[in-house]
């Protein structure tokens, strides 16, 4: 067991000598003169007190001082260092041995008590540190706390946490305090088996003064805490990654089953109609042939829409919506779409109300056309033939709000958020094929990519109103 190295405290030694001088003076003036035994005991008492309060060095000096004072002032012949009687010599020697031993024992007891207290303090501090950072996963919060705690517990001027970056180079993640010129640095490694994950670097307190064993141990414990924090952060990010992969897998499965079902149905109809026309030995009338041919054409359009939807969805998922944006007139975009869908829209009366002074919006024309197309397809699918569909728009501050409304069965309140999720399908109007569940999710993806928002509102009188809002800022002077 080593005693804690303490800087030479001159004051302690002066104090010890002063105490011995004081007690000697006091004892000299006591009348009648004290017994040798009493004197010895008093000196030992002083040595003991010094050992308990000041330390080993001064108390040993006091012991030697007491031995000399005892000899000089109280043992005949007085005022000399000679000793005549052998029992006096024995008494003096005994005193010295006892005094020095007492010093040693008392000082050691004190040291031990101090060491235990320090260990308890450190354990407490480490416990508090681990409590405060165990809830945290963010390395940017944890590592500075560790650096600060290290400086505080070890009373060091500076501590830095060094980590390895993606290329394997060491960089300083955070620093507490400072590293003075002329002060050496000491390191504790954050290890994971044989791999080093990072380094805890500290500055020495004073030039040439290193850390004792206890302090070294504490430094390594702090490095271990830092390593635990790194581990935790890594595990959390791995868990998040795994979750993202699981979600992506789920979507892929849903996509595959959607594709399988949605593409096969129109294909089946096409195959059926075409093979019917090709049946040997049957002469179909012109009307029948016409109907079958129209069926094939209609289903081919249906297939085309599904393929478009799947492509759009996969692009949105990949974050690859190339937003080539230009200023567009919603009336133009809608007009082109209505022309494209003319034949399909014959089953429903369409009412369009777009004010002539609607501002231009920064948008990708094809994508906004897709939003209108999907909303109209929805209206066609979910409302019976003949029910009106209305499209209107208005300016709202620095935005344009568009409403596509129908008078179908509507969407119940609890499903109004859900309808925009991928693969969500409702119940189509009687006799109509169902959709792929992607149309509204695509609308949401496109509208949000434009910085807008889309939602569902109930319509007084039944049916739904799909409302989307697109930003329409003032074009800058040079753009005008």
């Amino acid at each position: 067991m080593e005693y804690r190295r303490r800087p030479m405290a001159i004051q302690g030694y002066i104090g010890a000598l002063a105490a011995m001088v004081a007690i000697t003076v006091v004892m000299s003036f006591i009348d009648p003169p004290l017994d040798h035994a009493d004197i010895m005991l008093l000196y030992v008492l002083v040595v003991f007190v010094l050992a308990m309060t000041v330390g080993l060095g001064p108390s040993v000096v006091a012991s030697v001082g007491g031995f000399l004072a005892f000899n000089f002032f109280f043992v005949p012949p007085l005022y000399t260092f000679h000793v005549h009687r052998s029992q006096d010599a024995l008494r003096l020697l005994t005193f010295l041995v006892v005094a020095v031993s007492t010093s040693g024992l008392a000082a050691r007891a004190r040291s031990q008590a101090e060491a235990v207290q320090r260990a308890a303090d450190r354990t407490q501090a480490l416990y508090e540190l681990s409590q405060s950072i165990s809830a945290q996963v963010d390395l940017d919060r944890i590592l500075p706390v560790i650096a600060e705690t290290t400086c505080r517990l070890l009373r060091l001027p500076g501590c830095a946490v060094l980590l390895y970056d993606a290329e394997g180079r060491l960089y300083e993640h955070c620093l507490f305090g400072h590293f003075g010129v002329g002060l050496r640095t000491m390191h504790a490694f954050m290890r994971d088996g044989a791999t080093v994950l990072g380094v805890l670097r500290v500055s020495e307190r004073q030039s040439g003064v290193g850390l004792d064993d206890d302090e070294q141990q504490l430094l390594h414990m702090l490095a271990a805490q830092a390593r635990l924090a790194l581990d935790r952060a890594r595990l959390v990010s791995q868990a998040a990654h795994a979750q993202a992969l699981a979600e992506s897998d789920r979507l892929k499965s849903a996509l595959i089953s959607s594709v399988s079902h949605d593409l096969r149905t129109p294909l089946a109809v096409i195959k059926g109609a075409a093979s019917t026309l090709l049946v040997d030995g049957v002469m179909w009338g012109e009307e029948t042939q016409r109907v079958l041919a129209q069926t094939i054409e209609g289903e081919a359009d249906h297939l085309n829409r599904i393929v478009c939807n799947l492509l759009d969805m996969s692009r949105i998922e990949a974050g690859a919506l190339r937003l080539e944006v230009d200023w567009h007139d919603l009336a133009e975009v809608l007009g082109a779409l209505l022309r494209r869908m003319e034949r399909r829209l014959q089953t429903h009366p369409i009412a369009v109300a777009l004010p002539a002074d609607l501002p231009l919006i920064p948008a990708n024309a094809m994508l906004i056309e897709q939003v209108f197309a999907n909303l109209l397809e929805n209206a066609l699918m979910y409302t019976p033939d003949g029910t009106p569909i209305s499209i209107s728009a208005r300016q709202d501050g620095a935005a344009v709000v568009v409403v596509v409304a129908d008078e179908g069965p509507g969407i119940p309140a609890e499903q109004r958020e859900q309808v925009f999720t991928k693969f969500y399908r409702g119940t189509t109007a009687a006799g109509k094929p169902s959709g792929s569940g992607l149309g509204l999710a695509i609308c949401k993806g496109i509208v949000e990519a434009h910085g807008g928002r889309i939602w569902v509102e109930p319509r007084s009188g039944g049916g739904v109103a799909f409302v989307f809002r697109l930003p329409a800022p003032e074009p800058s002077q040079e753009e005008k």
Partner: protein
Amino acid sequence: MSGARILVVDDEPAIRRLLQTGLMGHGYAIETAIDGVEAIEKATAWRPDVIVLDLALPRLSGIDVCRAIRAWSSVPIIVLSVQDAEQEKIRALDVGADDYLTKPFGLGELLARIRVALRHAVGGTQAMPVLVFDTLQIDLVYRQVVCDGTEVHLTPTEYDLLKLLASHAGKVLTHAFLLRAIWGSAYERDTQTLRVFIGQLRRKLHDDPISPRFILTEPGVGYRFRALV
């Protein structure tokens, strides 16, 4: 114009067969080519009146074929493309194609485009002094425009724009083409200006962009004046 010669270029045998059958059924004479190299050979040797050209070809791309043929011939070229390839369509039109069709398309659309292309082939509408579209009359000699019975006052730029569109009735004209022709090549990218003038023209002709009578929007590509049927 039956009897006209049409060269169909597509690497998919099913598409070639389908178009051949359909177009022959309407009285056209058809030759086919399976790639760009054969397309150029047949264009040179057979001298078609219209070329229907798929842009996605192996070996030589459709755009390169277009460029090559345009070097020595002004035969009308209609390109076939897919929905999301806007840039490709615009490039083809800039390189000299006359119109485009997006797959999948119906035969009726293709026939309409072919009719327009044949009409605008060299020596087509240029000779007519007055263009008539339903209730719209454009007198090219006196620079007068009458719509729904009343005279319409157009600024010189608006008139030039209308004349250009109407002279190519039925054909798509890219933004860049219109801007170059009327404002000069420095303004090739100024689609804002074009949109403003188209808007003004539409208003003066009482042409609702939602259900247009005359000026049709080809989103992302340009504008098309509605053809006389």
